[in-house]
């Protein structure tokens, strides 16, 4: 998944808090048969995604994870599906809270099962960011940064340089110390790495443009935004694309 989730979750920083309630335990759901579940999961998760299909994908991935040989893959893919649902399903808050709690729980299990699986760390970081957004709390951000860095160390190319994009958005948009760990220059470094690692991904250019604009570097911001609009993703999910493009168009209008 293009992790558009990560950006919008970072939009909701709150200044006043530095600690949040730990995610609650989530009761297990009835799962489909493990046999063939991974294939069903992949099928349901295929673009164009809808909330109903992604929820089915999540359940199938969880079921697939019951088989030891595909436990890690099933877990991180289920976490990814719940991250998507939290962000794009348009659910009510209570459902979003459940989905993100489930994403965190599954991603944690994925990390425990396969500590060297970059996707596990990446989706744990993503879900922690979403949790921070929903609860207007920043206690999870240190862990989010840690997990994002671990994912970047293990494989920075996943999700079109997703770990760099995540870290860039995190450092670029979090409030500066003493409130949080924000550091625009660090964010810029990560977003430049994202663009270098996956130059064909338009969202990497958009995120870079966004931070450059915030830092007052408008000429380069415009250039990066043009790149974002120019690039055409063939495998992108329309819901996710619409989400970042809406923000990108707003930024473009503002910079005119």
């Amino acid at each position, binding site marked *: 998944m293009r992790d558009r989730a990560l950006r919008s979750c970072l939009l909701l920083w709150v200044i006043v808090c530095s600690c949040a309630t730990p995610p609650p335990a989530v009761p297990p759901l009835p799962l489909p048969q493990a046999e063939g579940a991974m294939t069903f999961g992949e099928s349901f998760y295929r673009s164009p995604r809808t909330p109903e299909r992604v929820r089915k994908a999540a359940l199938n991935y969880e079921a697939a994870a019951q088989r030891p040989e595909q436990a890690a893959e099933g877990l991180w893919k289920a976490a990814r599906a719940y991250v998507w649902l939290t962000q794009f399903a348009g659910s009510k808050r209570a459902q979003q809270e459940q989905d993100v709690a489930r994403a965190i729980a599954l991603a944690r299990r994925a990390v425990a099962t396969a500590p060297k699986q970059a996707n596990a760390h990446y989706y744990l970081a993503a879900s922690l960011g979403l949790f921070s957004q929903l609860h207007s709390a920043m206690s999870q951000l240190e862990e989010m940064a840690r997990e994002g860095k671990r994912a970047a160390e293990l494989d920075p190319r996943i999700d079109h340089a997703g770990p760099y994009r995540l870290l860039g958005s995190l450092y670029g948009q979090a409030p500066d110390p003493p*409130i949080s760990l*924000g550091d625009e220059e660090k964010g810029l470094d990560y977003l430049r790495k994202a663009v270098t690692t996956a130059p064909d991904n338009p969202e990497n250019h958009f995120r870079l443009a966004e931070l450059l*604009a915030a830092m007052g570097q408008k000429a380069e911001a415009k250039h990066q935004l043009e790149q974002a609009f120019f690039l055409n993703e063939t495998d992108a999910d329309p819901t996710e694309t619409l989400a970042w493009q809406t923000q990108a168009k707003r930024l473009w209008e503002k910079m005119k």
Partner: protein
Amino acid sequence: MKSLRSVILPVIAVLLASTASAATAADDPLLFDLIQPGSPGSTEEAAPLMARWADYLSAHLPGHPPITGRYVNTNEQARIVLSQIKPRFAVVTVPYYLEHRSAYNFQPQLATRPGGRTEDRYRLLVSTTNPITTWEKLTGDVAGTLCHTPEAVARLLFQRTASTLPFHCQPTDRLLRAARQVVRGELNGLLVTDEQDTSLMALPEGASLKALHATGPLPPPLVVTLGRPDAVQQSIIQTLLGMKDDPTAHELLTELRTDGFGPVDLNVLTPLQEAFERAGKPR
């Protein structure tokens, strides 16, 4: 954040204005506000935390009345909230308190304890390469979150009105960016609170900054009522005061970044109010 804020704030201002009449017409709703001009985020973004705080207070008041809390971080929002909605109490920064205490009849009731601090201190930082030794010789631009309330800060730090300072006080919500600009010579100074100073000094940039001027001890942000507190407000004050010793409030206080609430030190605040008024008189 700044770009996001500029999109959201006009919407919030409209919403606040439109809810003002409804709120005052309601059956004495219990509203409170956390007013922190220049702090990042938005009312909407902070809503979940403020709701948790409101729920806590409601649960500890007789009859468990519904309470609503709001986070406000611009002067314009604060003006709308205080003049039209009239909260039952507000948490305000000391500069905001000093600038507006007469207009809204602020009565200090409690003091916050940010990071356990019982007092604050503001400092003017400059680059270590800057040869000047006195703030009177500083010109150009000086930045800081404190510049969102420039009049009070000018009077507290320099015993002058903002318009007579030899430099321009430029509001920012990106402290680290401003600190780096000072180090690079793009800004001439940085105004910081004690907590901001401590965090900057722990970063590499801190080695390139020095304090040129500082205030004496100042109170931390205050809990104020608008006028004398009634019985309900007294109950709220007692509840706030008891939070520090309530284990169930510990997490909430951590989120609010205060080690509970304590009495206001009038030995510090009263002379400060007098000094603030004195500094505003024509010389």
